[in-house]
């Protein structure tokens, strides 16, 4: 009886919560379908006529999203991959290797994520211009990988503390080098955390606007979110449906990533049980 009641309660809470969460996403989807010319100024609740592909193509052309999404993909994949590897290495060193002043190193790296991003704009821009990094891909990689490191490090460090130490000590006894231990033991053990860190940093880089609009102007450098913001500027003549369609289009890669990540997390859950 109580089991039954608990189940009902649980399902009610779940349904309510997911409804609450789904409604804004639903509005986003439905209004991205409204043909631009039929938009009346009030949000639609139900899908009417189908203008999604027209809106897609208008957003795609106006903001030149094709190359921009290619750029973003490159930055997000390479930037977060490099960041996660560097962060995992640093976490491995700080937690497992014999290092002095662990606390100091931890805070040195972690503090990067505590600074407000807007602080970096002016000084970074000036040094970028000085060292010819402004409006280059390498400059974008540099800033994206670096802003991703501190949080990925935090994540990986906390996971490293949960790795059973017996494994490491056994390997040490066998005379394995740190390099080997890192790749053969530590990385495989922290894999799910690494995937999580990668996913978060991928999304963070993909959705960045601040650095995208400040450090790039050329079409072959500018990331997708910066290109998308052209649709939203105060002079822009496209209506909300086109902005939404563009935003939806740009969000597809992150949605796909999370869809597959969710599957990964769930599968892993089963594996350990």
């Amino acid at each position, binding site marked *: 009886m109580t089991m039954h009641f608990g189940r009902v309660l649980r399902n009610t809470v779940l349904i309510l919560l997911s409804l609450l969460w789904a409604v804004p996403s639903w*509005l986003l989807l439905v*209004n991205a379908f409204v043909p631009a010319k039929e938009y009346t100024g009030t949000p639609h609740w139900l899908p009417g006529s189908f203008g999604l592909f027209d809106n897609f193509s208008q957003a795609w052309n106006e903001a030149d999203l094709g190359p921009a999404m290619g750029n973003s993909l490159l930055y997000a994949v390479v930037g977060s991959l490099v960041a996660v590897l560097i962060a995992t290495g640093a976490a491995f060193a700080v937690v497992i290797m014999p290092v002095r002043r662990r606390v100091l190193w931890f805070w040195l790296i972690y503090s990067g994520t505590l600074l407000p991003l807007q602080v970096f704009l002016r000084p970074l821009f000036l040094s970028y211009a000085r060292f010819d990094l402004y409006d280059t891909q390498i400059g974008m990689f540099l800033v994206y990988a670096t802003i991703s490191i501190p949080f990925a490090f935090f994540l990986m460090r906390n996971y490293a503390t949960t790795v059973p130490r017996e494994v490491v000590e056994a390997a040490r006894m066998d005379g394995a080098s740190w390099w080997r231990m890192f790749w053969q033991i530590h990385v495989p053990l922290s894999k799910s955390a690494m995937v999580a860190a990668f996913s978060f940093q991928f999304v963070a880089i993909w*959705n960045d606007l601040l650095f995208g609009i400040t450090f790039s102007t050329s079409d072959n450098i500018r990331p997708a979110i910066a290109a998308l913001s052209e649709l939203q500027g105060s002079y822009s003549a496209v209506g909300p449906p086109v902005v939404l369609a563009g935003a939806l289009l740009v969000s597809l890669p992150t949605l796909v990533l999370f869809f597959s990540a969710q599957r990964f997390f769930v599968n892993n859950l089963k594996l*350990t049980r």
Partner: protein
Amino acid sequence: MRTTTAPPSAGHRPPSPEPRPLRPDPARRRVAARERFAAGAFMTPAVLLVGVVLLAPFATTVYRSFFDDHRHSGFAGLHNYQLFLTDDALLRSVENTLLWVVGTVALPFALGMLIACLTDATRWSRFARLCVIIPYALSGAAVAVVWNFVLSTDGALNQLLSAVGLESLSTSWLLDWPGNTLVIICVNAWQATGVAVILILVGLQGIPPETLEAASLDGAGPWQRFRHVVLPQLRPVSIIVIGMSLANGLKSFDLLWVLTRGGPGRATETLAVSMYQETFLLQRPGAGSAIAVVLTVIVLGASWLYLRRQFDEKGA
């Protein structure tokens, strides 16, 4: 389980994985030096990048905060910091920032825990989980447009309220303080809970099912199992979720900027928005730098206080 059996590693007692040598032995010392060198090699990329790209620009900001904003900028001592004593809008901004911290620490964590624990591997559960994760993956532009749809005075929420006869509840969600700040904090929770859910799911993997079964056999109800078995084992994950929310809450900028730009007036400003306003819109980089420094001190201080305690208790 893992955390409790793990011997102390990092933290305030720098231990070494090997027993300390009893007497200085040159060969051993060479090994130790090589070890430290290897550790340095693992850490260098991270320290170097963060130091050069993030910490050095911040240092220039600290320096700038001691100079005034006249055309020929001169040394001003602590003059820029006095704004915090005289500017009412800045005081409101501090208030809002505190609200944000409470909101972003409590909401996504509690909701994330609820959703991660209530859902299981069934198809329908996964759908519910997906609903929560989707907003996290959406870009800021979409979030801004949709929530303006919902929250503006003639928007969807008020439409809905009047449709179900609750017209008296409809209000200008984004216009009146402190309601507007609270509403935006909820929007933030809508977007940020997805991360918490994922992290907590990853943490749930680490809980050996045997411990839950053992607790069941001991006659523990679901709540007791959660309270005494699940929650303690989610500790490492909780630290991450709360540590992250703490920093994000204090730095909150994006969502505010796209929804209200800190307005109306300066009613919804947080310190990060005030800093942007002063530096880039009012063109007072000195004052902006001072706000940035104060904000950073607060974020660092809060994170340090929280994490220090957590690391200590965990013994990690």
